[in-house]
């Protein structure tokens, strides 16, 4: 591979768009080319800085209201059953009065927005993997990590030590997803980091876990006991499922006991 080719392809490498064999080719070239090594490092650094900075804009409220008024009204009866419970925590967590004021739109705006939340979960996970970003409170003791969240969040994320089950608790962190603070409980499985994000939800409905894969990361999300959970890691989907099962089993024992 020439530098000219690598110059284009190393971006695809950074963006996770290359298949395994091309990724290996680019990496092989970079390994023996100081110039491309420097480029790759610089672009990685830039991408990380860009991912960390909040570069998105929020649509002004006036625009939302104008659009709401301009679009034809949906059938009220049809809307209710189709809504997903996933994001209710985000939609309703900030207070029911706001919902009442803006009516259906607040729910419609946030609902079925799973893609964006998932991609923010991935971004938060990636950010956490940068040096010094993983934990705000570093402790393998659940009785240290759990109280740390007090006063920082409007929910108490369950912090459960799963060391005996093969997942080591290493700490907790305050993160931001969907422009709201969210609790992250951090585990390790061998050398792999698992971030467990916990947010409040307004209904107590149980939602069975499901796994999605985004940018090579597995995300397993479910709802239980009035909380939404997202577990994300680069470990395999089966191991992540094992993690969530053991976490849930332990959480149920804690609640009942």
């Amino acid at each position, binding site marked *: 591979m020439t530098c000219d080719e690598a110059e284009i392809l190393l971006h695809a490498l950074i963006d996770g768009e290359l298949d395994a064999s091309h990724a290996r080719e680019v990496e092989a070239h970079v390994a023996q080319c100081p110039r491309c090594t420097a480029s790759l490092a610089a672009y990685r650094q830039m991408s990380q800085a860009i991912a960390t900075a909040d570069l998105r804009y929020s649509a002004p409220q006036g625009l939302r209201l104008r659009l709401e008024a301009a679009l*034809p009204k949906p059938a009220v009866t049809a809307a209710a059953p189709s809504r997903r419970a996933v994001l209710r925590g985000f939609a309703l967590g900030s207070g029911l009065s706001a919902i009442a004021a803006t009516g259906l739109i607040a729910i419609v705006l946030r609902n079925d927005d799973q893609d964006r939340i998932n991609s923010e979960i991935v971004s938060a996970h990636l950010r956490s993997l940068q040096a010094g970003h993983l934990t705000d409170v570093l402790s393998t003791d659940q009785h240290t990590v759990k109280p740390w969240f007090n006063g920082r969040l409007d929910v108490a994320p369950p912090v459960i030590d799963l060391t005996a089950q093969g997942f080591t608790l290493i700490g907790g962190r305050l993160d931001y997803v969907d422009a709201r603070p969210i609790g992250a409980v951090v585990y390790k499985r061998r050398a792999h980091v698992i971030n467990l994000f916990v947010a409040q939800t307004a209904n107590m409905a149980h939602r069975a876990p499901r796994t999605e894969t985004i940018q090579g990361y597995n995300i397993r999300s479910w709802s239980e006991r009035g909380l939404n959970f997202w577990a994300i890691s680069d470990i395999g989907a089966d191991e992540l499922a094992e993690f969530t099962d053991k976490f849930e089993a332990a959480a149920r024992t804690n609640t009942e006991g």
Partner: protein
Amino acid sequence: MPVPSLDNDPDKARRFREMTLPHLDDVYTLARYLLRDASDAEDAVQECYLRALKHFHTYRGPAIKPWLFAILRNVCRAEYARRAAAPSSAIEDTVETAEQTPLWNEAQETPEAQILRERDASAIRRLIDTLADPFRETFVLREINNLSYREIADAVGAPVGTVMSRLARARAMLRSAWMAEQEPSK
């Protein structure tokens, strides 16, 4: 605003809302970067949603975001044309001139303290705003709207290869601007 085709189809109206309104921030973000003006962006987004509604029956999935972005892009093009026609406004850089002229003509004054520190959002936005249209658009779709290469290609109506070269070029320009800011000029 009258949209007669949907007035009598509340289910379609609901689907349109549920599918498109969650992406309002995304669409607005792209509009801000494409037009570099808050109130023009609002107008463009509103126009984009009304056009999207009108053409909703032509939407064939799977991802709604690139489809909305493609519509927004067309709206913004009309805005570019309007600006170009207005005597006082600056004409946008074309691809050709952007390929030739260096992005950073004059070294930017930077306080020592800022060097090597992480760029804050407004500084990064300012750097992104200096990119010429096709590069800025591709860069924002990738880095801020989180589209895949394939989705960007769909949204801008260009082959994936073009997307890749524009993205490489955009990042190279940003990188030199970035470096220019990190090295004090004196």
